């Protein structure tokens, strides 16, 4: 097997005595689309926080090696924007778009490119960038709403916009937190298709609750079940679904 692009080993994080993440091991391989499920409080969002520099682990290491056979980067030493610049993008659980800005501007601000103060001051959009923005707008189906204030979009549209913003920054790794929340069935399905189409080019981790959606996107990939801050089991969707422990802690709850 190839070298993992992202690996977390023996990671622990406590908040005021509460172990949000407990001796977690996680490996993501290039081009993989990984789905992470788990009950509330399993530590999914904290896990993303640790990967993106929002929180620092108490123990354990998180390493990122986008190019095989080069020294890996220790993510625990870096902060949010440094990690983003390495090519790890994140979509938040509650869509976080710039509500006061237009859809178009939201994407412009996310576009890959220099992030420095002076670069922003003297920034001009070239025609290649405009073409790319047009393509993105079409991809996330917000072409006709490009001048809308993002705050006025529906919940699902905001999710799409945020995915668009994520793509605009052309990351290697996409961390996607509950992309289907607030979407209609049809929108959800299209989101799944989009994610599937991105796999291969990007390495993707999706956290999700909606089981039919999970089933849709994990058709080729692995599913990881988190429970009480560590991995409960990992495998194909069907295997996981039938795993007794999973049924007990997670799916079992859904039945009652």
């Amino acid at each position, binding site marked *: 097997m190839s070298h993992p692009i992202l690996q977390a080993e023996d990671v622990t994080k406590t*908040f005021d005595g509460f172990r949000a993440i407990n001796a977690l091991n996680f490996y993501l391989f290039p081009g993989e689309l990984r789905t992470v499920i788990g009950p509330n409080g399993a530590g999914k969002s904290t896990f993303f926080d640790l990967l993106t520099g929002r929180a620092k682990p108490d123990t354990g290491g998180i390493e990122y090696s986008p190019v095989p056979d080069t020294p890996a980067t220790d993510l625990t030493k870096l902060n949010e924007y440094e990690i983003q610049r390495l090519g790890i993008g994140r979509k938040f659980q509650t869509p976080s778009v710039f509500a006061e800005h237009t859809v178009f501007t939201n994407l412009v601000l996310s576009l890959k490119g220099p992030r420095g103060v002076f670069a922003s001051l003297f920034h001009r959009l070239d025609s290649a960038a405009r073409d790319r923005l047009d393509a993105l707008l079409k991809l996330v189906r917000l072409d006709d709403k490009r001048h809308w204030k993002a705050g006025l979009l529906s919940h699902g549209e905001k999710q799409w916009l945020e995915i668009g913003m994520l793509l605009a920054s052309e990351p290697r790794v996409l961390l996607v937190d509950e992309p289907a929340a607030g979407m209609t069935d049809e929108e959800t399905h299209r989101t799944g298709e989009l994610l599937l189409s991105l796999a291969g080019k990007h390495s993707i981790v999706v956290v999700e609750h909606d089981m039919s959606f999970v089933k849709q996107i994990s058709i080729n990939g692995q599913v990881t079940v988190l429970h009480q801050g560590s991995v409960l089991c990992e495998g194909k969707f069907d295997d996981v679904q039938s795993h007794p422990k999973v049924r007990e802690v997670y799916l079992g709850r859904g039945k009652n």
Partner: protein
Amino acid sequence: MLRFLLTLFYGFALWAGCAVAAESAPAVAPGRAQLLAALLAPPAEQVAAIRGLVGVEDAAITPALTAWRAGELYLVPLPDGSRVPATLAPAPNGGEQLVALSVLDGTAIPDPAAAPGSATPLLIAPKSLKPLDTTAPLRRAMRDVLEVAGVADPSPSVRRESIERLGQSRKPEHLPLLQARLVIEKSPVVRTALADAIAFIQLADSSHTVRLAAIAALGEAHSLAAASRFKELLAATPPPPPDETAALTAALKKIESHWKTVNFFGDLFRGLSAGSVLLLIALGLAITFGLMGVINMAHGELMVVGAYSTFVVQNLFVSVFGATSTAFHFYFIAALPVAFVAAALVGLALERGIIQFLYKRPLESLLATWGVSLALQQTFRLVFGPANVQINAPAWLQGSAALNDVLFAYNRLFVIGFAALVVFGVWLALNRTSLGLLVRAVMQNRQMASCIGVRATRVNMCTFAFGSGLAGLAGACLSQLGNVGPGMGQLHIIDSFMVVVSGGVGNVLGSVVASLGIGTVDQLLQPILGAVIGKVLVPFAIILFLQWRPGGLFPTRSRSLD
């Protein structure tokens, strides 16, 4: 309180003394005649006449001169043209009129118009007489007389004070008097003072050995007055003999190291007291700003409301009970709840009128409440006048206790105790009452709390009023320490915001630790750096401290985004 009891005790002792004197005085004693002459002498000769009373033993002299010095002695004119020195006291029947108590025998002057032999006292209308004048030279002369007389005073503390003064005057002629007293003195405190005073006078003794013994004794006694005298002696030309120089240096060292210790503990106490003041001021803010997130720039003015309430209660007590009554001294106790309620009501109006609309815009509450603060200041100015108002401390908050030379001022002790009490009260209110539970619920998530049926509006209202009331209490306490005027709120507002921020917003315990810390650091720095630099450094220190702990001393952790 102690002080109050002492005052009562003194008063009683004085009366007892007078009563005894009255009984044992068959006719005008020679001492009494001399006193009378001094009282009635023309101003130019009064000083000499009073000095003539030094050493004269007569029970009337001390009360007479004490009253004179305090501006409470009157010359009551009689129809025969004579004038009788007397103090005025309320008439036993409780009327408007005052009775004149002759200082010569302590008895009421009989009314000359009444039938001879009857006991009708002479009644005098208030303010119809002016007290006998005093001047600084006169008072100094009286003090000399009283000091000598005070050596034999029934009260140990009067004896001690008089003896200390006599010692400092370093007049050899007092030596026999002091030594004679030492033989019969029983109180250990007074004996120490006597020994010191004798040693002080003996510093100039002709005998070398006596001088050496005196130096050693004073060094042992940690006398500050001796220290400055020692320095003078060491610097004198020609210098004292070598063994005396050595003794002086050793004694000086002993004294100075003692006072270093005293000052250290003094600083600690002062720090604790300054911290308690800060704490009282900041506590209300820790609730309204820390817990509720309202930046209330009018918080200082809520304190002023408390301070002016105290002023009003004081005046009420004066007009109902009179300024000299025992009841007056309890006005401050009555003022505390009034201050709390008054400030809470103003706070309530503020919350209902303005702040309730701004919970989602905390930074804008800053602007609106600043507007309120300006308007309130002008209101104080128009209602109470632009000048400061006069607040007289009750007797039990005046003065201080000394423990091994460290002074503990009663008002400071009170503030420390009161601050502790208020902190405990706040802790109880927040953690042990259902309101406290609701408060914490609402403060954590206003919307969620109202969803589960908490009446957030009412909780907000109560919490804000409570925080405002605490500001009122702080204002009442401050009225005993500093000035009360329209601008007093501005003096403390920045300090208190800094306390809350460095303690950690949303954490009352943090404010407690932060205020005590800031107070102590400030007081410890002051002797080294001066008052101004200390005040400048504190904000800078807080900025640097927040570098280390951006959330304050006790940050509230939350997992929500932003």
